[in-house]
């Protein structure tokens, strides 16, 4: 038995899945003031009459971090940057609490300017006086050499006993200093409160006699043991869309290209599965105003939904972006797409006469019949959604590439399926699919697709290995790991072997070793370093991933 719980905007859903079937579902209204409580209530409803000892795994998809950030309830953080030469740190929008330290590391990880320790001491005492307890320290190219970050961290910890200090290289080994800075700051800003949540949750589950391992769903559609997730709380952001995409993966044909449409009251979310693989945001998620390194699915939101206000502006029909209230047929103040659907018989909800009245108002301005007006409203909604889908495919096609073969091979993909989840999906998905020349799929369990997605998602992880054979060094930044290579002419194959070995170690540490067989090399590059006319060494980069996927138990 696999349990999945998903905290949504209006309801918190829970499912039990067994042997490829949905065994039981439950839901409670979401209480945004107490997410913990409503997750437990949904769970209690779900397991009523179920032998909890048969539960093998529980996965939580929660908006706790999303809400904390959206509501500005994160802890204040002092961000200490070691930018070295290059951009002016003021050109990055990283907030007010930024201090600049002196020192520089270059792209090869060489120290080009020593860390000025006096300056660190001075900044640290200033932070103490201001009462900062959470500190992020991020150096440019700190992922290639973390000596400055470590030293600065040591000084700051000494000056601020008990403060939480997070170092940039532990958060991401990828290039992009401002994103690393933002991600590190968010990590330390949410860690303590998140830890409180995981502690309570673990205790509450124990009290209920649930001894199965508990996982949390991340933005990349992967799961992570609850106790390990405290190392990277920000990765649990946007788990809602991730859950719905994983749910669709589970509920639609494998290996195909699908568009996922989640039509809600005021917004419609779009995501893509390309040849069976969910599309990731190319460089990382945008969290509020901050660009981060958090791996997340690419989701496009448009302000249109069942409750969007229908207006006539300059003789033209417009739907959204605002919501004035529920649909007229549901007792709301004005015309909405839901009223149009009711008039056209696409849905049975709401009062038919009220819906008719809503469309009559629109029709009188347009000089047509209520039915025709309803048709036009639906066409407008469908056209908006279709054009956003096309824009999303186009954006994917236009992602920059840096090698000839990448530019030559990039194929054009057509959507094979349009899959709908969310309340507004069933009536509209066939219309969108028709325009796209694709098959419409509204899965049987669409309303609880998110919870199913959480229940059946498998773990994911990423390992970034950087090797510089001239400097005789390999680095896995996130692990703080540095080793000797001892092979000036290391081949990409050898580098990939090393990456696999290191991945196994990391997977063991994260408690997901059972899935390490699924790891793939997703990126591998090698450059000969030529100095004068001979080869001085090699630079190799390998990225290995356990990608998002569905547990074999579901497909079985």
């Amino acid at each position, binding site marked *: 038995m696999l349990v999945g719980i998903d905290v949504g905007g209006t309801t918190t859903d829970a499912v039990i899945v067994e042997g490829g079937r949905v065994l039981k579902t439950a839901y409670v209204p979401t209480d945004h003031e107490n997410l913990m409580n409503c997750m437990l209530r949904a769970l209690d409803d779900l397991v009523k009459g179920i032998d909890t000892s048969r539960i093998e795994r529980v996965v939580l998809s929660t908006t706790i971090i999303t809400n904390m950030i959206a509501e500005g309830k994160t802890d204040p953080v002092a961000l200490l940057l070691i930018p070295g030469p290059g951009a002016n740190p003021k050109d990055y929008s990283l907030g007010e609490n930024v201090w600049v330290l002196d020192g520089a590391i270059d*792209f090869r990880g060489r120290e080009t300017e020593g860390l000025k320790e006096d300056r660190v001491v001075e900044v640290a005492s200033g932070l103490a006086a201001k009462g900062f307890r959470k500190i992020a320290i991020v150096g440019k190219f700190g992922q290639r050499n973390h000596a400055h970050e470590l030293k600065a961290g040591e000084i700051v910890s000494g000056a601020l006993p008990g403060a939480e200090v997070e170092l940039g290289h532990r958060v991401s080994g990828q290039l992009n200093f401002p994103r690393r800075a933002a991600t590190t700051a968010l990590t330390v800003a949410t860690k303590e409160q998140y830890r409180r949540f995981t502690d309570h949750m673990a205790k509450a589950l124990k009290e209920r006699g649930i001894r199965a391992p508990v996982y949390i769903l991340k933005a990349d559609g992967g799961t992570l043991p609850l106790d390990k997730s405290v190392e990277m709380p920000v990765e649990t952001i946007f788990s809602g869309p991730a859950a719905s995409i994983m749910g669709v993966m589970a509920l639609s044909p494998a290996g195909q290209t699908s568009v996922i449409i989640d039509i809600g009251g005021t917004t419609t979310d779009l995501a893509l599965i390309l040849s069976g693989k969910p599309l990731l945001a190319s460089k990382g998620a945008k969290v509020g105003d901050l660009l981060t390194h958090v791996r997340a699915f690419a989701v496009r939101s448009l302000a249109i939904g069942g409750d969007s206000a229908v207006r006539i502006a300059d003789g033209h029909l417009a739907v959204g972006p605002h919501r004035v209230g529920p649909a007229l047929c549901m007792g709301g103040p004005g015309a909405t797409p839901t009223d149009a659907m009711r008039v056209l018989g696409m849905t049975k909800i709401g009062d038919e006469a009220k819906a008719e009245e809503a469309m009559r108002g629109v029709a009188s301005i347009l000089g047509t019949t209520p039915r025709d007006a309803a048709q036009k409203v639906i066409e407008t909604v469908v056209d908006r959604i279709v054009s956003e889908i096309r824009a999303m495919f186009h954006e994917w096609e236009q992602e920059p590439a840096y*090698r000839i073969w990448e*530019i030559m091979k990039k194929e054009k993909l057509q959507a094979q399926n349009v899959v709908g989840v969310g309340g507004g999906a069933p009536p509209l998905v066939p219309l969108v699919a028709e325009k796209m020349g694709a098959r419409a799929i509204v899965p049987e369990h669409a309303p609880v697709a998110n919870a199913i997605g959480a229940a059946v998602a498998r773990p994911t992880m990423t390992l970034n290995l950087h090797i510089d054979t001239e400097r005789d060094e390999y680095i896995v930044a996130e692990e703080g790991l540095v080793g000797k290579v001892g092979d000036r002419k290391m081949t990409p194959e050898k580098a990939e072997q090393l990456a696999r070995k290191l991945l196994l170690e990391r997977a063991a540490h994260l408690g997901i070793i059972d899935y390490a067989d699924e790891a793939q090399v997703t990126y591998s590059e090698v450059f000969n370093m030529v100095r004068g006319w001979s080869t001085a060494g090699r630079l190799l980069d390998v990225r290995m991933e356990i990608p998002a996927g569905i547990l074999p138990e579901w497909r079985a």
Partner: protein
Amino acid sequence: MARSKTGKTGLIFFPAFDWAISPTHPEREERLLYTRDQIFEEGLMDLPQIEEYKPRLAEMKDVARVHFCVPDVEAQVTEAHLIAAGSTLTLADAMEKGEIRNGFALVRPPGHHSMRVVHGNRGFCNVNNMAIMVEYLRTKYGHKRIAIVDTDVHHGDGSQDIFWHDPNVLFISFHQDGRTLYPGSGFTNEMGGPQALARTLNVPLPPGTTDEGIHYVLDELVLPILKDFQPDLVLNSAGQDNHYTDPLANMRFSAQGYALLNEKLSPDLCVLEGGYAIESALPYVNTGIIQAMAGLDYSHVREPDFVPGRFVQSQEMTREIEGTVQHLQEIWEERDALVEGALAELGDFYRRRKRIFYDTDMINESQEEAVRICPDCAGYMTIASSAQRGYGILNSAYCVSLPRGACSSCREDAREEYEEHVGDRKFGYVYLQDKDRDTFRSFNNMTRTQKNY
């Protein structure tokens, strides 16, 4: 140059990480690796001032609009060349559509040593990215007057050759003195064809010239001339090998010097040319140029070993540069009289002979060029070209080019020239480049087949 300067800076980064002339050649995979590391780590692509574009492939026709490729375009370009050239076109389109206010094609392979006729690779270049962009901009968007400022340390002899007779393209190249560096040309007496005298200006600089010397040339010569010329567009062949650490040249220009140059010049579009100090210069120079184009603060960009005041120019060097600048100012002032004088001495045709050496491919080419001095248009041009490799003839070609706005008499004569040489076994290939109608054809005299672009 009262152009509106709002909007984003377009950037195409195409490092061609899977293309090299040979494994240890300066033009190899690794060239822009550290530049990638630096600009990605800086997060420049994420800034709201910058928009990154994906390159497209240039079409064969875009190349044929500029070059006579022997035997044909397909034989002279690889996919890498088409992507590098296509990058410039993508940015040109984005600028014309108003999506960006300026753009930088940070791409390889480079192009400014490629001349009008192409038998192979010379100076690491096969086709001229800058010239392909210029002709595209003129054909598609109707620009009339264009200024190219070539800031590579090597003389931009390919671009010079292509625009030699064109009074509407101002080509200014400053570079290390040709007596001390490849390609050995670019002296002040190379000023353009008789109808376009002083629209080609060369500023040879002594080895060791510093920021001070280059900015003197910019402030005293280049910027005032641009103001006089009033171009629709200012384009920059942005070589980065004037840098004090470049292994192939001997100048002393810094990353700050490059960024400031870009800010003052304020080019509409920049195209990367050379620059081979891949670790010590390129990451910093490129960061500085991108920032300057995007109006960002570049004052924090600095090479690790640079200290302000590190390089001081001798007084003798300063005097030499001042002398060259003064000489060129005089040439520029007399430009109309120079053209008048030259045309007065000419009959119906202007002719010149040239020898061209392709250092990369070891080819020797000899050319006889003729341009009709026509009262009604820019006049058609013919080039008889023969290329040798070692002691054997490689290829020979007869090239005919019709200018934009060609008069009917030139059109007729050019057509006759082409037809006369079709079947003429002295030449392997015959070409007719019709820039007025934007059609390009070639004929293979050995296989008797015609090809159109």
